């Protein structure tokens, strides 16, 4: 990379929360803008520099024919392509359409479905192009993002944990809400990164960082059923913000009554 690499931020179907994570780096934002050249970032600046870009951060999932073409152009203009957040990495909450009839969805929300151009499925970026690094979370943990950009600037490999929320929870010294309170919790199968926020407020993890590297969803589902969750309840737990991630998708279908 040259001394001042170029950074571009792209948005597809999303809530803007992961990009906002960049603007939420209040202590690092002006420094970041000095270390890299922000070449394209619509939410932050009217200035646009033409590509190619050394690093592209991609937020959002692919849900329209137009976006399916646009991601190819983004890939072609990018050195490293990093997806940020659950939408870009696993289709996001809008991937719930993958389990329904999108035509019916369109007529539920819009009076003139013919004005709406949409794909039957919401897909992660990796379904369309090669992704170099994925940052999980709904939303991402901005400290992870700062870590990744710092690592890329230093020319070293970023460290992203693949273990589960349970490990972070133990490190945080939280009481196990599943064991101690019988609260349904996806922590055992969910990737670390948030800092075990939910158990810290006495609620079960709801899986917003998606599946950990190794998961035993079948065993967890049995425990969830023992706690009194219906088949539909179990299915719903896997079917939120990362419902298109392979492990969560498969397990939700197992319990889709």
């Amino acid at each position, binding site marked *: 990379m040259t001394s001042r690499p170029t950074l571009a931020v792209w948005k597809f179907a999303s809530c803007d929360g992961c990009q906002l*994570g960049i603007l939420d780096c209040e202590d690092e934002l002006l420094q970041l803008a000095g270390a890299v050249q922000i070449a394209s970032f619509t939410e932050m600046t009217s200035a646009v520099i033409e590509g190619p870009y050394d690093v592209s951060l991609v937020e959002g999932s692919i849900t329209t024919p137009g976006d399916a073409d646009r991601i190819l152009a983004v890939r072609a203009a990018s050195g490293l392509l990093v997806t940020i957040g659950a939408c870009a990495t696993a289709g996001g909450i809008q991937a719930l359409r993958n389990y329904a009839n999108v035509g019916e969805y369109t007529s539920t*929300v819009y009076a003139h479905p013919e004005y709406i151009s949409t794909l039957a499925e919401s897909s992660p970026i990796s379904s369309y192009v090669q992704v170099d690094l994925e940052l999980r979370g*709904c939303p991402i943990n901005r400290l992870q993002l700062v870590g990744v950009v710092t690592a890329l600037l230093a020319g070293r490999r970023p460290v992203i944990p693949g273990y589960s929320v349970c490990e972070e929870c133990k490190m945080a010294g939280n009481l196990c809400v599943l064991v101690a309170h019988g609260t349904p919790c996806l922590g055992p199968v969910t990737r670390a990164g948030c800092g075990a926020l939910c158990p810290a407020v006495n609620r079960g993890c709801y899986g917003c960082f998606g599946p950990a590297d190794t998961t035993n969803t079948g065993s967890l589902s049995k425990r969830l059923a023992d706690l009194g969750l219906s088949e539909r309840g179990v299915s719903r737990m896997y079917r939120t913000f990362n419902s298109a991630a392979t492990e969560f998708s498969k397990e939700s279908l197992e319990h889709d009554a």
Partner: protein
Amino acid sequence: MTPSGANANRTIDVHGLARVEGEGSLHVAIHDGALERVELEIFEPPRFFEAFLVGRGYEEPPDITARICGICPVAYQMSACAAIEDACGVTVPESIGKLRRLLYCGEWIQSHALHIYLLHAPDFFGCRDAVELAALNPAAVERGLRLKKTGNHLMELVGGRAIHPVNVRIGGFYRSPERAEIAAMIEPLQRAREESLETIAWVASFEFPEIEANYRFVALSHPDHYAIEAGRVVSSDGIDATPGEFADVAVEEHVARSSALHSRLRGRDPYLTGPLARYALNGSKLPKAARDAAAEAGLGPVCANPFKSIIVRAVELYFACDEALRLATEYEPPEPAAVPVPPRAHAGAGATEAPRGMLLQRYELDAEGTILSARIMPPTSQNQLTIESDVRQVVASGLELGDTELTARCELAVRNHDPCISCAAHFLDVSIDRS
């Protein structure tokens, strides 16, 4: 002055409006020196929230609807809670209501500081972003970032996370923060309150185009305080309704150029929600110090110049800091943190004031709490027609301007209302067509 020659026929196209949240574009067509058409196009891809909420559990909307918008998730969570609790016939105790208001103040501080300093102010200095502005005036931008950070801290403290908080549930919270945790916010909030006064003085010194719009204002109103998390829906032309009654009279239209539905009131012209509306309808409820600061900044009891919305936003920023400080000082942890909300077969509606305007949700539940229907009215879809009308007025009064300047002013006219396009889609590029 009647423009002639090259300026008589033109189109202004802004594709990918910058410094707004989400994606949209603006098309302006000028023919024979007269304004022909203004269209705000929202091409944010549809995400179908109202469809996939059907069949989900009644305890899920706070977490699910938060994902409509990363900038105002608390607004979605609070409106969802209000709507579901209304459907179930539950009223939360005052202590929970106050903690919700404290969390919401955090979002107002965060969102208003973001819009004033990072998205809106650069326009008034001819800068393309806050980084350029920081080169001209580092102290101002650093102040904005500190304010924003204080708002985020407050949200993290009460909500567990600033973007998509995890501590909110139907009936209240998963965990009540301890007194000492909230007490730690008092000093940063005192500093933020001082810096928000500096913010008012700073933005009041900007140069503003002299434009007065004729707005129909709609906002929540509460007898005891400047409404945020609860109230009745009132308007500048005499509406006084519950959120449910208001939902019944607001008509949503679907037009080809937009994946956001346009809201109108049956038989009436478009309306505006947000800081200008709240200030006009509820200004008397602001604390005296905020009213004095507004008067010193040159605001009367009503501000109808959309470019001056940045001053109103700064007054509200001061208010949110002051109110958060009051709530933090008086804080008593709610015990229990949440009250039970047994489901019932009923419909309910809830409205709260998102930083950019009123946000209404309505749900219909069955006896087990399964959602039978959902309706979400985000502020930007309610404001879209009025924003178009603002742009029309700006173009009509600026036909002598060159394309570059006119385009910049059109973009600013949109940005004045802090539109959240991600929310509305169910939005910005500017194009001016002088053909």
